[in-house]
């Protein structure tokens, strides 16, 4: 299972492709369950990069827990939540927290 992630060009904030746009949280990102879906996400990412919406586009491994997408690797968990040493900042500080590690 993979989702598409990138950083937004204007402010560098980590974003995930969801529902036809770029969401600031990973929880409801569009999931690719097979190679064809991965290819489709990759094409979307390449187009968004070419269109100067986002930079550093990547497909990342995820799992789904209680209907919410969670990255597999620690690096991506931290990108999705914020620094583990400052839980008062980053995405985890928002009302719907997603805490890494």
């Amino acid at each position, binding site marked *: 299972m993979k989702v598409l992630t990138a950083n937004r060009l204007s402010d560098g904030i980590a974003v995930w492709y969801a529902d036809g746009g770029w969401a600031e949280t990973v929880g409801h990102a569009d999931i690719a369950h097979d190679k064809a879906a991965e290819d489709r996400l990759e094409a979307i990412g390449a187009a968004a990069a070419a269109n100067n919406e986002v930079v550093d586009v990547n497909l990342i491994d995820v799992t789904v827990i209680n209907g919410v997408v969670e990255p597999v690797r620690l690096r991506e968990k*931290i*990108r999705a939540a914020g620094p583990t040493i400052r839980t008062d900042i980053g995405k985890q500080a928002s009302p719907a927290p997603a805490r890494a590690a």
Partner: protein
Amino acid sequence: MYRYDEFDHDFVKARVAEFSDQVQRRLAGEITEDQFRPLRLMNGVYLQLHAYMLRIAVPYGTLNSRQLRMLGHIARKYDKGYGHFTTRQNIQFNWPALSDIPAILADLASVEMHAIQTSGNCIRNVTADHFAGAAADEVADPRPYAEILRQWSSVHPEFSYLPRKFKIAVTGAERDRAAIQTHDIGLHLKKNAAGELGFAVYVGGGQGRTPMVARKIRDFLPEAELLSYCTAILRVYNLYGRRDNKFKARIKILVHETGVEEITRQIEAEWQELKDAELKLPEADIQAINAYFAPPALPDRPEGDAPVKQARLDSKSFSEWLDQNVVTHRHPDYAAVTISLKGIGEVPGDATDSQMEAVADIAEKYAFDELRVSHEQNLILPHVARADLKAVYDALVEIGLATANSNLISDIISCPGLDYCALATARSIPVAQEISRRFASLERQREIGELKLKISGCINACGHHHVGHIGILGVEKKGTELYQVTLGGSADENTSVGEIIGPGFSSEEVTDAIEQIVETYLGLRLNPDERFIDAYRRVGPAPFKEALYAGETKAA
């Protein structure tokens, strides 16, 4: 301290305008990321895990209060209320929007600061002893020479696209506090028998995946030949440095593969073509730059001894802070103060906007408006009258920056690690925090004595783990963080690279392992004056291996 001249002002202003235009064109989609990336890197803008990161140069670590106040302003207005002082005497902001960076650079330019050459394959910020101009053991202030190198290396057309980045450090004392032997070029400012100033020149030091201690290629280079000789070194490197392999592209690999004798011969041959020509520094120019660094007039303040003695008796914590964070100044009525950015359990090197402003106020009021950033990620007040030490201490207590741990085990160097850095393979700050908490007792820390503990979150070694008395390297293994421990590293005048002590430790185990190492040292040292590094050099790794792994059949 150094003040911009007309050329500097115009140059930085022009660069701000140029990069602002490049940012606007990028945001408008007129240039691609591939075109923009090298431009943003030349201006200190990285992309990290959560956002962009802006690395601002603090040339040779020297700041005045106006500049530090501006850094506090930037932290508050454009970032999340804090900044991170780095092991290269710079400061990084972790959250700036690309669209705000032109405004940040304009604010910086208004206080004679910039982010030029804080990234890219060029000559980076030249670093220096953080006690420069104040240290009692100094032959001469190394910063004028660092400034000469800065002027020479800024947008140097020949050296802007080197095989890899290039770092120069300068010290003016026998006791090396600038870690010069871990730099591409290390310069030790000294006097010869005739009393003339010059440099011992070291080449090819570095950390990263292939740590190397620099080799001395010249015992005495006359000061006037500083630029001709550095040009000769850079020319040889630029010509023969390995551009085919990023991991072998630093000058340390060239020195190693070529052999120090042969590369010295090449450099000297190149230098013969350059010396006594236009790169020879005119005495008048050296004097002019030196004048910028003229120390503040330090009036005699002999009244300091009695109040310091009394305050020592009144306050144990002040007394401990004096012992630990205050060092001898060349003027007997003064002292140099280390402001620890390593509060117990805090993030090494981080300071909040209001702390930066408060420290700026202290520097203005008590320290002749001078500040330094140390490569050990602390701030320094280089000139404080002993009579004012208690007032400075009280002001630092108020802002939570009076931790008396300079050079102790909780004075940890740590890179940002996987909490921020896109290159990191493991977190480093939480490890630093846990070790700091474990050794929170100052009494215990002081019993242990000087111990340099350094942590990196990847093999690039920004946290200097190779040269920590105890070094910790975080790697990713089978999806989890694993911490490799090295012992016996050192970054002073007796620089050495630490040796891996054995199999790594999980994040849950690593603090216990460090404690085990420390307890082993305490058990075997000859006396309390034998520092950890001296004891390790005497006994070697065996007792530590035994303590850590005896009876275990742990997989590597």
